[in-house]
């Protein structure tokens, strides 16, 4: 039977500027899926961009290369990753006048 593990890495947190989630070790997993639940969105033209990032050591990061998740309002958003190495995080950008997003972010791993 495969192993699976879901980690809630951000919980009811409001972002109004650029951010990165905490480094998460996932070297044991063959596949990963980010789930981002936007609870609230505020601000004129509010847009949330989430770029999957990868790292060999949890210290130095680059974009994984997938298209970013894009959110403009409440809802559940998801993207899947494979061949990511050992560490994962999301790099977030918040655009729009006085924009903010309240989110729950979970990482589901399997392998």
């Amino acid at each position: 039977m495969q192993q699976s593990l879901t980690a809630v890495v951000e919980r009811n947190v409001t972002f109004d500027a650029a951010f990165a989630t905490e480094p998460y070790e996932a070297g044991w997993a063959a596949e990963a899926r980010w789930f981002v639940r936007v609870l609230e969105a505020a601000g004129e033209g509010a847009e949330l961009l989430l770029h999957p990032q990868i790292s060999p050591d949890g210290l130095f990061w680059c974009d994984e290369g997938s298209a970013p998740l894009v959110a403009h309002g409440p809802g559940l958003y998801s993207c899947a990753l494979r061949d990511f190495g050992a560490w994962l995080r999301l790099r977030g950008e918040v655009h729009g006048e006085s924009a903010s997003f309240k989110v729950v972010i979970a990482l589901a791993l399997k392998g």
Partner: protein
Amino acid sequence: MTIADDLRLALIQADPRLSKFNPLPRILFYDDFDEGVHGWAELIGNHDGNLDNVRPIMADLRPPQLSSCTFFDIGTHGSVHGTYALKLATRAKANHMAQLIKRLTFVRQGLVQFETYFTYKAEQVFSRAKGDTAVWDGNFDPSETDFGDFTISNDVCEGHEGTRYHCALRYLNTDEHGKLVQKWLYKTSVQTSTKMHRAGVAPPAADYHVQHPDDWREVPGGYQPMCFNEVPTKVNWHYLRWTFDTRTRRNTELQVNDLVMDLRDIPVPVYEVTYKGLSHLLNFCIDVRTHRNVRNFLYLDSVLVSVDW
């Protein structure tokens, strides 16, 4: 010793997974983190479905990680047996704590023993904070002063609306100024519960385990420098054995490598109020707390809990 005792001991000593432990007669669980997290889950404060109602000190205790102990300089370190260890990681924020919990209930009261091989580290930083005068001399590395503390604890409730208490033992590596202390502490007040908080009988907790951050005392003979091993990327595993007795509501012993501390005379604070729905509660907790804006990590290679039931 009976023949059965001798046979049992021989079987344990011949098993490379178990021979590094000293279990009581019944092994309640054995957790090798090469196989998964074995029920060690993030602790969260009580809520009504609205996560905004979780008390701040229990709202962000961080999920478990299965770590290969990988570092920027050498790559993967691995664990004692195999590749993975259970890892707790704080945020890079002073006073942030990460805690994991494993939840059981007890069949009978008696001795309970928690054993593990652990190590602790602060995250590598590449420049010291302004005002930090600690200097790397080729042996001592200032990163050792970036590690705050870690605590092992339990949560026991003797029956429905029965007596409830937490035993908690903390290894204080540094004080709030980053000065090395390296002592074992025990707590002198009960942990503020969500019930107490909502009833207004306790202020918001600044230290998860106690009512006031100063409610800790030194364990007699509890000074113990450990093997941090000079840099934040070298992992040396330490043996820990902690025993408590749910008949006497006391810690019994704490052994870390060759240091054995008798804890039988140390009082354990008991709640004045009772709690519903916690009959025969037996939880095990581990946590790590940073005192600086540097991530702190606690790694467990494996855990064995045994009882004398």
